[in-house]
């Protein structure tokens, strides 16, 4: 099971959670493995099974090249799925998604500033800018949305996120106009893609994502108690303020790191937690592991389909998830229990 190497191992689930997960996790791992194999084999040229093992065949080099982007897709998708699940629990908002709330756009903006003005060119350096941008934007959106009359409802959060994204997009355009070189680098990255990523680049960002994932999994019980509301949560002996800060840190690390690696990708974090809930129910101890796995599956599959959809070019992951995700968003939002989680 090499495909899941990059994935942080979830801590041992509690006995109550084990019942549902015992069946769901193996199924998920099989699907993920199949998706990864398909991703390596399928593309503009199809690699045969034999070439995969034969180091001398020309197909082998292609497979190796695809391996990098497959690993990147697994890591990015897992991180975004997990970040989305945490964010939905944190804001008690079924429409929360690091992309829709502008967190990915904030990370992207900070990276562009770093590349254009500070001359930063290494992924290991500008990933920190991405994290800072994600943190600031996330707090800003939450702050503004909570000031809106009627409180931070699902609708106001999404609209605030869209407004912040629009403002940041304008400023990004302004910066890119000055600097053609940044523009050329940014042109493909801004769509959200894992094409051309190497395993080395993944390894640069991986520690940050692992820390974020650990925080997220440690917070699984916290998310369950936050779902009860602040008062009940306090009655259960928790500190909602401190708990929130930990989960926010997890979201920022996960979505900032993923954005640094692959550009802003929307809708993975929105759709996947809902899928996980339909499989194992609302408990976050079960939802979080499945969100990682299926987030990875969705991203790998989107990337693979995008490669063969419109030959000879490829449709980037960000475009695929946006086009597939928008109708799913509408379906989710039309369900009457949109009021809160």
């Amino acid at each position: 099971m090499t495909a899941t190497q990059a994935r942080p191992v979830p801590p041992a689930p509690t006995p109550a959670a084990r019942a549902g997960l015992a069946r769901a996790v193996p199924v998920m791992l099989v699907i993920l493995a199949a998706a990864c194999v398909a991703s390596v084999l399928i593309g503009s040229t199809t690699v045969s099974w034999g070439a995969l093992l034969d180091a001398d065949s020309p197909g082998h080099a292609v497979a190796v090249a695809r391996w990098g982007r497959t690993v990147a897709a697994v890591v990015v998708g897992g991180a975004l799925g997990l970040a989305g699940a945490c964010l939905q629990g944190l804001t008690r908002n079924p429409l929360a998604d690091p992309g829709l709330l502008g967190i990915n756009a904030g990370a992207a903006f900070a990276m562009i500033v770093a590349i254009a003005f500070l001359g930063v060119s290494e992924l290991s350096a500008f990933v920190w800018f991405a994290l800072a941008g994600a943190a600031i934007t996330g707090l800003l959106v939450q702050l503004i949305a909570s000031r809106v009359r009627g409180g931070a409802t699902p609708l106001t959060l999404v609209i605030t996120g869209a407004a912040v994204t629009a403002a940041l997009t304008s400023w990004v355009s302004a910066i890119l106009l000055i600097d053609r070189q940044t523009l050329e680098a940014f042109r493909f990255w801004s769509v959200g893609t894992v094409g051309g990523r190497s395993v080395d680049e993944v390894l640069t960002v991986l520690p940050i994502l692992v820390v974020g994932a650990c925080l997220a999994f440690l917070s699984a019980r916290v998310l369950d108690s936050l779902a009860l509301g602040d008062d009940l949560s306090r009655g259960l002996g928790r500190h909602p303020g401190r708990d929130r800060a930990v989960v926010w840190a997890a979201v920022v690390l996960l979505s900032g790191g993923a954005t640094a690696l692959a550009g802003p990708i929307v809708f993975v974090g929105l759709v996947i937690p809902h899928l996980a809930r339909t499989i194992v129910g609302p408990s976050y101890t079960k939802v979080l592991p499945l969100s990682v796995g299926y987030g990875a599956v969705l991203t790998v599959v989107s990337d693979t389909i995008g490669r063969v959809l419109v030959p000879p070019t490829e449709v980037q992951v960000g475009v695929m998830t946006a086009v597939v995700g928008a109708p799913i968003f509408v379906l989710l939002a039309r369900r009457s229990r949109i009021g809160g989680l």
Partner: protein
Amino acid sequence: MTLTEPPATPVVDPVAVEQVRTARRGTFRRRRHVVVGLSLAVFAAFTARVLLGDFTITVPDFFTIVGGGTIPNVPSASFILMEVKLPRAVLAVLCGAAFGVGGAIFQAVLRNPLASPDIVGVSIGASAAAVFAIITLGLAGPVISVWAVCGALVTALAIRIAARGSGPVRGHASSTSSYRLVLFGVVAAAALQSCIQYLFTRADLYDAQLTLRWLTGSVSSADWQTIRILTVLLLATLPFVGWAARTLPIVELGSDAASGLGEQLVKADLMLLLGVVLVAVAVAASGPIAFVAFLSGPVARALNHDRTTIAGSALVGALAVVAGDYVGDYWVPGGNYPVGVVTGAVGAPFLLWLLVRGRSSKEAG
């Protein structure tokens, strides 16, 4: 709008009549002041855009060149004025007015300032269709406008259908469907935006100016043919805009009150159609200039004592685009930004401010 003399019966209290008359006259006077003041501002901005900047043209020279003459020592002046500055300014005024009117109609009919065509994805739908026609189908010329209008219509219809009739949204009982419309529109805009970006990564010829024009809006590539097409189309919609301006005060009371006052509900849909066409035609000429449709209505309302004014919105839109183009071209260091970047950078904070002020939930007619 004429004031009829009150019937001279002793039952009517002359003091009360005088009060009502003063109150109504105040509204009309206010609107006249707003329209005249805004017209002057647009004229001033237009003049500055045409005459000032990095190449100054004096007023006599301007009339000489427009009259067909040339300036003896500076032969390039004719070209700069007639092919660069003047078309840019004219296109900015036309597009700004179209965006302003389209936005104001949307906001008034849907009774929500957030429900403007650029927020709910209508503009970006027009833009996506135009980009598809240009890059994938290799089209050019007036047919692009047709594609833009079709794209805007399809987007608007899809969002309208998706937002119609499902469970209530908690916390927004009063304006449920318009709020869901905004929500779906925002998401549709995000998806369409990434479609445009994808089309651009597919294009062989990559031109930053072109991308930004279709993503954020710009008038920098104005030419007289575009202006001619746009003028003809806008003139054709003018009678409908006049009709809308007269009927809007009743329609924006909401469907219940409007049908109580004898207006058919289909009028609201016709007005939205008019708004879609206006915005789409402008997008075909200049791209989706960010936030102009969204900003014009509320700004004109605020100037006009919280009453919707179509003429005022048109003027605010024109002013925003002309001034934004001037600022982007000459004031920002590094120079030559498309107008959409300027209006986007200014407009988004305004949107957030509007949200925080809580207008979004109570705003009605």
